């Protein structure tokens, strides 16, 4: 059942919130020992929230857009009084002293905060393998990775454990795992959703967004999450449209841009075929298809790994063992304390990125790397500005390949980085993007279709995605677990 239908049923009282919560908990018990999507899920906490919601009057329920609907939370979003670790040893024992703004909004909307999902350490990775806590499996093939960094969030929805979850996307961390797990993952425009309470990775790129089984549910959740926030000065004042109204319009009059730079050598032939079928389907539904060019696409990964690591090296300087998290026990002086705490607390990938970021910002290299990357970022943004003069949205594959095997890329960081090649540009340009299931390969692995929109063009993406799903049933496929 969709979150949309579930909410209706719970508001009407046809189904008690406690009953629904128990159904989800029993699914969790059946499948999560195989999938390992969650790093923490306390049954009592869930049922306590459910009982409190069941006590609300019919009138109080009406106004709550997510009444009784469980929403899983990525382990880098602060929930007051709950441990939040970013799947890192360095934040072991850290209890969030306040709610992230998105958490306050979920509570206000009557959602059940349903456990924390696994992720790559500090959201740095594309496979959830850098988590210091556990490995999450792809529900479609337990020997494969779920994508990352929000791998637990995607797998929790794909395995039917929750109808909705929230994650964060810095270079594709919502869209890529959504594609690999066969669910919908939406990264909003930079500034559309407050980042207050999201533990920072790269502040000019990070955005929180929804995971769902279908686009309508993603619209429902985005509607709750979006909007200005005095606690995040980079959060936009732009009015939030009614996303659920926007999705019902048909697609005639819209133009889609197909960038030739996204159909390159190295892309899996089955992925390419599925995406092309989806484009043909959109055309059948009245969308005009046009070729566009985004000539700087091939520089996206380089630009990203300079900008993101530079920002990360600065953001992660705060983990010094003084105010929270673990502290090395052996340190004899303050400098020792910094060195030992950080060396013991961070995993290899995080260290690698801090090193790279420190290097590109260091004296003598700043202009050659960091400033250069910021200039290329401008060129990439201009590519999109030019394309959006002709088209309403852009269609690409989300990931060049379906889910790969666990361990396949861990020893080769560069090949892991290249798996984000199609998602990174939207972050650098601050644009909204969504991944939508568009079929299964012969090995029964999901393929994702990515739609990229204009700044604050969420409505168009949701409309196109929803209309596509009205005419197709790729999103109705479920893994056998």
């Amino acid at each position, binding site marked *: 059942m969709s979150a949309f239908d579930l909410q209706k049923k719970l508001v009407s009282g046809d189904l008690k919130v406690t009953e629904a919560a128990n159904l989800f908990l029993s699914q969790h018990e059946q499948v999560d020992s195989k999938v390992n999507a969650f790093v923490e899920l306390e049954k009592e906490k869930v049922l306590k929230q459910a009982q409190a919601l069941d006590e609300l009057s019919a009138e109080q329920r009406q106004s709550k857009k997510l009444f009784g609907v469980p929403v899983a939370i990525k382990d880098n979003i602060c929930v007051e009084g709950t441990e939040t670790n970013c799947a890192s040893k360095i934040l072991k024992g850290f209890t969030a002293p306040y709610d992230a703004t998105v958490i306050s909004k979920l509570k206000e909307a009557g959602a059940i905060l349903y456990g924390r999902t696994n992720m790559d350490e500090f959201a740095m990775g594309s496979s959830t393998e850098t988590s210091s806590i556990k490995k999450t499996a792809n529900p479609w093939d337990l020997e494969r990775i779920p994508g990352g960094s929000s791998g637990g969030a995607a797998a929790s929805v794909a395995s039917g454990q929750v109808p909705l979850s929230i994650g964060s996307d810095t270079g594709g961390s919502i869209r890529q795992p959504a594609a690999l797990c066969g669910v919908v993952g939406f990264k909003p425009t930079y500034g559309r959703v407050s980042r207050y309470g999201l533990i920072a990775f790269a502040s000019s790129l990070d955005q929180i967004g929804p995971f769902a089984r279908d686009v309508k549910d993603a619209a429902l959740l985005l509607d709750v999450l979006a909007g200005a926030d005095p606690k995040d000065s980079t959060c936009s004042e732009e009015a939030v449209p009614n996303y659920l109204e926007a999705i019902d319009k048909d697609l005639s009059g819209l133009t889609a841009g197909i960038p030739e730079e996204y159909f390159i050598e190295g892309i899996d032939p089955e992925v390419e075929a599925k995406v092309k079928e989806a484009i043909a389907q959109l055309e059948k539904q009245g969308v005009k298809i046009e070729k566009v060019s985004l000539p700087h696409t091939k520089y996206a990964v380089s630009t990203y*790994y300079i900008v993101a690591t530079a920002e990360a090296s600065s953001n992660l300087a705060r983990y010094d063992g003084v*105010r*929270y998290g673990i502290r090395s026990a052996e340190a004899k002086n303050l400098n020792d304390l910094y060195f030992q705490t950080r060396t013991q607390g961070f995993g290899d990938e995080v260290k690698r990125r801090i090193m790279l970021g*420190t290097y590109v910002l260091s004296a003598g290299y700043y202009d050659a790397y960091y400033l250069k*990357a910021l200039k290329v970022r*401008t060129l990439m943004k201009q590519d999109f500005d030019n394309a959006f003069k002709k088209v309403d949205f852009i269609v690409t594959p989300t990931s060049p390949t379906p889910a790969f095997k666990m361990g396949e890329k861990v020893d080769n960081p*560069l090949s892991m980085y290249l798996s984000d090649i199609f998602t990174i540009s939207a972050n650098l340009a601050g644009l909204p993007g969504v991944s939508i299931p568009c079929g299964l390969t012969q090995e029964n692995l999901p393929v994702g279709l990515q739609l990229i929109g204009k700044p604050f063009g969420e409505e168009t993406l949701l409309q196109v995605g929803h209309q596509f799903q009205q005419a197709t049933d790729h999103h109705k496929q479920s893994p056998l677990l």
Partner: protein
Amino acid sequence: MSISKEDVEKVAKLARLQFSGEEVETFTSQMTDILKYIEQLNELDTEGVEPTAHVLPIQNVLREDKVTNGKPSKTIFVNAPKEEEHQFKVPQVIE
């Protein structure tokens, strides 16, 4: 451009990280690969291009200077590895 072991050791110091000899070797080779790849940016002429540090045209967001966070300090100190009288305790700083 390749990066030397000495470069890696220097950057590690700046980043307050320690590595064993073997780790320095691995990082040197991995960072060399990544930096080589990144150098493709030099193909582009960026003369006269303005840098983009931030995509939104937001500047100087101001608010009234009023206290809005009413949380007691104990919610913060509950996370302190070591605390004394509501202050973070650290090892000796000055020898």
